[in-house]
């Protein structure tokens, strides 16, 4: 999954460096605050461990190669912020000494594997701990599953980065300049390998080592549903919000999301027919659809408020509003539930 130099355009690389920077900044500040403790040598040790783990590459069909990254272990022992520094360090040394992953692509690799990887692991780890409760295998299982999810999320991010290259970076004749395969190819290609071999390797190693560490160094791994920090969740949400413009890139509408007007639009009809496996589309919207479509007029129609002209900005704003509304609903439910 380490992306070498030359497959992503310079602007993609720059964007991902810029996206990684704030996370690195926060992580460094948090680590600096604990300079007098043994956090830094621990961090360095996990970075070294992650490095050694990543050296064992398993070649995968159609999906570059897979390996365990140690993302699960680093997050569970060090926390998400120190963890992402550890994995970033391992990635940098790999890039410098083995050319495994490029230097201009380092921002991308760190974003996918270190930053997103550790944050996603943390969120799911905490979530699963609450689900599994105080059972003896809770931590190992939560860590293993969280790491599995995280690795696949990292693979998805990499696939997206590859997949958007042919869309944006073409020469005058329309030929791709960088990675040439579209999302429809890269996403399955990356995910197949990681949902299977690489993900399972990560799951197995994380579960095995956490079990071992629980036995031998009990204080090391945070036990039980401790106070849930919202910061990493916020970070993950921020991440997802930034990624929402990707939705713009998928041409056309998702299955079943056609509006009443689409039935009269020739292009949309073609799409509907294709999605319906060739069955001819009705010439006009079904009566029921027409009647109910008028019932509710959404404030942020089609995710693009009228006062914002740039579609990406509109998308992001909609995402922010959507998430905020969702959070308000969830928190209100939570407060209500606690009251009862």
């Amino acid at each position: 999954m380490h992306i070498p130099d030359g497959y992503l355009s310079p602007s993609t690389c720059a964007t991902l460096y810029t996206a990684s920077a704030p996370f690195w900044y926060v992580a460094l500040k948090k680590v600096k605050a604990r300079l007098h403790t043994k956090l830094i040598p621990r961090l360095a040790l996990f970075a070294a461990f992650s490095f050694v783990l990543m050296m064992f590459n398993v070649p995968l069909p159609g999906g570059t190669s897979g390996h365990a990254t140690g993302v699960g272990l680093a997050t569970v022992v060090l926390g998400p912020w120190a963890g992402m520094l550890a994995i970033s360090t391992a990635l940098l040394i790999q890039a410098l000494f083995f050319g495994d992953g490029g230097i201009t692509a380092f921002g991308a690799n760190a974003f996918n594997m270190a930053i997103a990887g550790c944050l996603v692991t943390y969120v799911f780890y905490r979530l699963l701990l609450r689900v599994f409760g105080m059972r003896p295998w809770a931590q190992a299982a939560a860590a293993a599953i969280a790491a599995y999810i995280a690795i696949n999320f990292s693979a998805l991010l990499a696939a997206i980065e590859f997949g958007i290259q042919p869309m944006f970076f073409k020469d005058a004749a329309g030929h791709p300049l960088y990675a040439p395969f579209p999302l429809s190819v890269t996403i399955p290609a990356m995910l197949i390998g990681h949902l299977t071999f690489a993900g399972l390797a990560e799951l197995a190693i994380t579960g095995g080592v956490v079990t071992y560490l629980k036995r031998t160094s009990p204080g090391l791994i945070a036990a039980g549903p401790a106070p849930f920090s919202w910061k990493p969740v916020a970070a993950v949400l921020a991440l997802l919000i930034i990624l929402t413009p990707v939705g713009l890139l998928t041409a056309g509408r998702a299955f079943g999301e056609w509006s009443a007007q689409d039935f009269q639009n020739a292009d949309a009809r073609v799409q509907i027919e294709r999605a319906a496996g060739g069955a001819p589309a009705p010439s006009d919207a079904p009566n029921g659809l027409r009647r109910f479509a008028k019932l509710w007029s959404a404030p942020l129609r089609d995710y693009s408020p009228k006062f914002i002209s740039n579609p990406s900005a509109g998308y992001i704003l909609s995402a922010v509003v959507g998430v905020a509304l969702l959070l308000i609903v969830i928190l209100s439910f939570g407060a209500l539930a606690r009251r009862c």
Partner: protein
Amino acid sequence: MNVSRVLESTLSQLTGALEQSESTLKTGGDPRVKVIGALLVTVAAVSVRRWEILIALLVLLSGVAISAGMTWKRLCAGWAGGLFFAAVVAVPAVFNSGWQLALLLVLRSEASLTCWLLLILTTPFNLVLRALQALSVPTVFIAILSMTFRYIFLLVQTAQDMLLSRRSRIVGRMTGADHRRMLSSTAGVLLGKSMQMSDDVYHAMASRGFRGEIRVMQNFEMATRDWSLLVSVAALAAAVFVTGR
């Protein structure tokens, strides 16, 4: 597939590669210039759209490497690293988008690889770190990098010892499940042992006054040679960038 054999050979490859950088071609020169130079050339190479320019760049870089004392064997071993990815992405691209794109993809990654290989093999790692420190990479990160580098050797040494002693104690064949179990228990034990040692390494450093900054004996002063290197590398990067469009 004998898992422990695979492990052992990978581990010795690892130490081999890392140790090489410690004791190889020490060509002098300000490491800051070398790091900036590598960056400029890499960024230029990644922006190139004409494969002929990349071939020229690769030839030039190889020439510099060989004249600095690198063996062809080492160079090719470095290039082999990039070919794996190329096989998976670039080769299918031939059928999809033509051989020129495939060539471009491969050459870009190889050119970048060669740049950094050159840097790493001609500059001791702690000087690279010192250069990064001088170029404003946060000190905490530099300290982490430096310690990680040391711990890698420690880990690999411990792992090799463990595997060796295990190998001499296993009689008869092992099943796949046995292999997997051994693997994750090895990983766990390795981590446990290393944690103790890593604490000691840190104490040893603190005991001699380490407080997070990297200090080296060499003074970084730009000599004429360094300025001319910087200028020529910048010119090279610019040339590559401009002609490559």
